[in-house]
């Protein structure tokens, strides 16, 4: 019995070890992805699925009602991403730089405290911030009142001009721990000898950060940027938890994720349209793919790496 397995030269163990990952990944990632791309080319007529080629995309980009919603969502998405890049990542770098300071006390405590929101559920974050900012029960108005700045308070989540920025900042609050951790790890991996060599040449304090540490952590910042990009363009949960599927007020917080959800699954009296939904999903996939490609071929290849 044992000999029959050995005599065949096929190396089964390779297949056996690869199989679980390949099967799971194919079943939950590759197949759904391609099926979604395929679904975008169909529509439903008379309760039958019919092939219509690129018609759904023509509707999405050509029809005024659809395209307006799409560009609105895309524009909001870019703003969402812009706020993250402008606020989350610089703060993340700054926090990491402070935390890696050897004389800082309670560094572990701060690190955990800043990282904890990252592991919270979106629903909890959305709900908690909705309460904090609530004009009726929230602590934001009374806190501002206590320092005499009540006039600065506005029902931010209900105002078209502030709602999206407010939600982006909530998201920054939640996820600032991730760039912090990655940069912190990168900073720790910089050998002491390099910094000491710099000191001998008279580069100390802030100059050491700008001239030695920052160039060395640039690859990490690149990775963080692309993670932020992918995460933001796939975002959905926070907006849905805080503002609902209609992404109010007046669609000012509508991003591609909520637009996709409304279209694909339907909402209230609007019945779901999986085919138009797939078209939107395909467009999202395209946007993310282009963004990642620009990063991979345009930026990452030019980053200099240093081996120690």
């Amino acid at each position: 019995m044992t000999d029959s397995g050995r005599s065949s030269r096929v190396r089964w163990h390779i297949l056996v070890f690869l199989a679980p990952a390949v099967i799971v990944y194919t079943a939950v990632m590759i197949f759904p992805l391609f099926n979604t791309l395929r679904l975008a080319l169909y529509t439903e007529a008379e309760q039958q699925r019919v092939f219509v080629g690129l018609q759904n995309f023509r509707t999405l980009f050509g029809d005024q009602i659809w395209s307006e919603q799409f560009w609105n969502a895309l524009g909001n998405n870019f703003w969402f991403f812009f706020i993250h890049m402008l606020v989350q990542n610089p703060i993340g770098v700054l926090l990491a730089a402070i935390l890696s300071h050897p004389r800082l006390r309670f560094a572990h405590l701060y690190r955990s405290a800043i990282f904890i929101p990252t592991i919270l559920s979106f629903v909890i974050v959305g709900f908690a911030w909705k309460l904090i900012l609530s004009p009726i029960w929230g602590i934001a108005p009374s806190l501002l009142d206590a320092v005499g700045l009540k006039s600065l308070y506005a029902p931010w989540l209900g105002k078209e001009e502030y709602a999206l920025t407010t939600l982006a900042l909530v998201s920054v609050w939640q996820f600032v721990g991730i760039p912090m951790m990655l940069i912190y790890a990168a900073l720790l991996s910089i050998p002491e000898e390099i910094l000491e060599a710099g000191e001998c040449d008279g580069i100390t304090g802030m100059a050491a950060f700008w001239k030695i540490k920052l160039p060395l952590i640039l690859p990490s910042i690149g990775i963080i940027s692309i993670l932020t990009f992918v995460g933001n363009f796939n975002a959905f949960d926070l907006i849905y938890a805080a503002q609902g599927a209609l992404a109010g007020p007046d669609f000012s917080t509508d991003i591609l994720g909520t637009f996709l959800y409304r279209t694909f699954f339907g909402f209230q009296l609007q019945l779901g349209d999986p085919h138009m939904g797939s078209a939107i999903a395909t467009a999202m996939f395209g946007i993310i793919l282009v963004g990642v490609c620009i990063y991979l071929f345009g930026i990452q290849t030019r980053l200099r790496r240093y081996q120690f």
Partner: protein
Amino acid sequence: MTRPLIGAALLATTALTATSALAQDVTLTIESWRNDDLTLWQDKIIPAFEASHPGIKINFTPSAPAEYNAVLNSKLDAGSAGDLITCRPFDASLALYDGGKLADLTDLEAMANFSDVAKSAWQTDDGSATFCVPMASVIHGFIYNKEAFEELGIEPPTTVDEFFAVLDTIKEDGTYIPMAMGTNDQWEAATMGYQNIGPNYWKGEVGRLALIKGEQKLTDEGWVEPYRQLAKWKDYLGDGFEAQTYPDSQNLFTLGRAAIYPAGSWEISGFNTQADFEMGAFPPPVVNADDTCYISDHTDIAIGLNAASPNADAARTFLNWVGSEEFASLYANALPGFFSLSSYDVAMEDPLAQEFVSWRGKCESTIRSTYQILSRGTPNLENETWNASAQVIKGAESPEDAAKRLQDGLASWYEPQQ
């Protein structure tokens, strides 16, 4: 003899209790999204039915509201759905009927106990076939804090002028927020705002049907005026109402901080437990004191027959009973705020529910204007109405612009409006 046996045997797999049933007993299974009502069915409705109908057993098997449509569809496709199907209003159920999943119940005796408006949510577009027995509706109006009104010496208003006079009085006094409503969730503005006061302006069914036929437009006076009224509400809502959510509004009112709550009758049981002051209700105010009043008496829930049910006869017996006075009275009293749609005069104990239902006697009933047919296309009129109502209340869009936007959206896909 064998068919009911097979049926009973099949159903026994879902209902363990059925094993002890007698051979000729038929067990009917009800699919529903009302899992909140499980105890009500088990303790009150099912015993009442089984007592008067020996030989038929009922098994109530609800699923979660958000999953109901999907679960039901897959069960119907697989042939494992129950005999009786709780029907959502309008298109969701119509699609089931068109797909041959729901049986035609037009000739059911109990249908005579329901008005045309009551049945409209579960009929084909031409009204030729009815496929679900209406169970309950919800009525819109305003709930107010009686103690606050007494304190300020004001009476519930009947006309629009009185309505705003009352709001002005409450605002001047300053103890209470005049009206508890926010625009954050958008649907309150449309459902408790526009659809609440609107029927008085578009003359209920007359306007609603004319809109469906294409004889009226959303830019007509009757459809724009409610928006002009809503635009005036802004000054009477609480600070930061733009970010106020639906639960916020409910709490503001039940904590006694707001005097008036634009409501739907489904709030009654919740408010009864939350609020420790006496509440009253008044219907949407009319323009002139002797105008006919119109109320939104919205059809919300019904029950139909699975076309593939092997126990159709027993199921029809049950459906006839659902259309009876006994059921109407049981259901309406157990769930104050969900009113029977039958033509019977159902006695209810809850004073607030009594007040709401009394309007049926003096006002004309209609349903929400956007629910039948008009929300089938893209853009979806109901969702657009949420957005427009919230925008108008916030003052971000003029009533005329909002109406024009809705009309353009509707005309883009709905032929009679083109």
